[in-house]
């Protein structure tokens, strides 16, 4: 039993509250650090894949301080608010978009010792909370009183409701195999074999639907810059805009961590039985798998062109949904026959 387990099973008290608050602030700093360097990494990866260098001026040869400089610039930007905007909702929207993005991280177990909660319905919690961000996006689109913004917001809503269902259904196979929604138990069930080998179809569906939920290319219609200028955040500037970007990248963090937990076996060693779990290598395995997934998302962004709105919707309903439904029964059959 690790120290966090014994802490979670002790009587709730103000001491616990203080420790959890400290852990929360630590996690907040980790996510902010991740966002800073993920943006840089994305620009670098994008640069090299397009045969150019990417940022290489601020902070040495590799442009290590580029994102920091960008954030400072955003802090000094004037905060304009259109006069016809709905003031309350306009101010509220970035908060509604950001808070759930950070909230979902609470359930993700990174290693056996590095987790914050042990919630029985962890997976359901993630899916339920992550849906709230879309309300923030729609609110932003509506409150801006801008035609592009409203269109972007509506597209975000349509996209989210179409891809939420394949996303939710693809993980049912995993729940069938594990018999639990607890993410810690899901990782423990993968001690011998990662679920990506047992559920390859689910992995593909989850990856595609996850990209759509993240509003990343090829599913970045809500903010398609060539047709909607910037979509739902046209009217946002300075730090309010930064919070939309921040929530997008925090979701990238959370979703990549979730894919690692669900499909790649979390902190378990990639080759089972080599006994490398005991010496505290869990964090290393998790980080490697996590970085691979983040890189995959960046790779997809650079490789694929944006879909049309009709292709997007029809792909979600006519292809992904039937496959996800079939996958549920396929997994039940496999479980019935082989386990």
């Amino acid at each position: 039993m690790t120290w966090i387990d014994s802490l979670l099973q002790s009587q709730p008290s103000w001491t616990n509250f203080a420790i959890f608050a400290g852990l929360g602030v630590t996690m907040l700093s980790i996510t902010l650090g991740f966002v800073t360097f993920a943006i840089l990494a994305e620009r670098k990866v994008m640069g090299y894949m397009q045969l150019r260098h990417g940022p290489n001026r601020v902070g040495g040869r590799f442009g290590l301080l580029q994102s920091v400089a960008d954030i400072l610039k955003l802090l000094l930007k004037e905060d304009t608010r259109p006069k016809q905007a709905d003031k309350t909702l306009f101010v509220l929207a970035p908060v509604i978009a950001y808070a759930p993005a950070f909230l979902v991280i609470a359930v993700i177990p990174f290693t056996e010792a590095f987790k914050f909660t042990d919630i029985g319905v962890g997976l359901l919690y993630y899916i339920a909370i992550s849906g709230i961000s879309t309300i923030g996006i729609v609110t932003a689109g509506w409150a801006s009183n801008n035609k592009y913004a409203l269109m972007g917001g509506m597209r975000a809503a349509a996209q989210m409701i179409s891809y939420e269902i394949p996303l939710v259904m693809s993980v049912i196979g995993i729940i069938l195999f594990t018999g639990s929604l607890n993410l810690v138990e899901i990782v423990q069930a993968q001690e011998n074999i990662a679920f990506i080998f047992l559920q390859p179809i689910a992995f593909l569906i989850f990856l595609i639907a996850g990209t759509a939920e993240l509003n990343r290319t090829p599913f970045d219609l809500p903010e398609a810059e060539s047709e909607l200028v910037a979509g739902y955040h046209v009217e946002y500037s300075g730090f309010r805009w930064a919070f939309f970007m921040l929530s997008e990248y925090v979701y990238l963090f959370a979703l990549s961590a979730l894919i690692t937990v669900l499909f790649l076996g979390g902190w378990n060693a990639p080759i089972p039985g080599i006994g490398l779990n005991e010496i505290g290598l869990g964090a290393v395995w998790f980080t490697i798998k996590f970085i691979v997934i983040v890189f995959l998302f960046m790779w997809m962004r650079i490789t694929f062109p944006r879909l049309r709105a009709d292709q997007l919707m029809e792909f979600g309903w006519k292809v992904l949904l039937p496959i996800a439904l079939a996958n549920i029964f396929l997994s039940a059959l496999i479980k019935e026959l082989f386990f």
Partner: protein
Amino acid sequence: MADLFNYQNSYLVVVIFLGLGILLPIVALSLGRLLRPNNPSEQKRTTYESGIEPFQDARVQFNARYYIFALMFVIFDVETVFLYPWAVAYEQLGLFALIEMLIFVVMLLIGLIYAWKKKVLQWI
């Protein structure tokens, strides 16, 4: 007792994360107020519309397609609400529950095929 404490502590963490998630934007935006300039002008505060003078209100009636997709979403989301507990308890329920769930899903699938044939799923 350990389970109850685990439950309470876990949701305490969730509340703390929610608090931090709301506090960060508020703190950052309030502190930013001290740093950023603020001299709004009439021109700056107009809505952006690719350079032309904005006309009419942007909040217009929207296409009904969005509404129909929302209805479809509700149907299948309710389906997943039934699928989740079934999947968790599958070990105890066994083959009989699998066949029952198959019938349930096929019934909803007929609805999907009907919507497909009625060209509801077509996004023009």
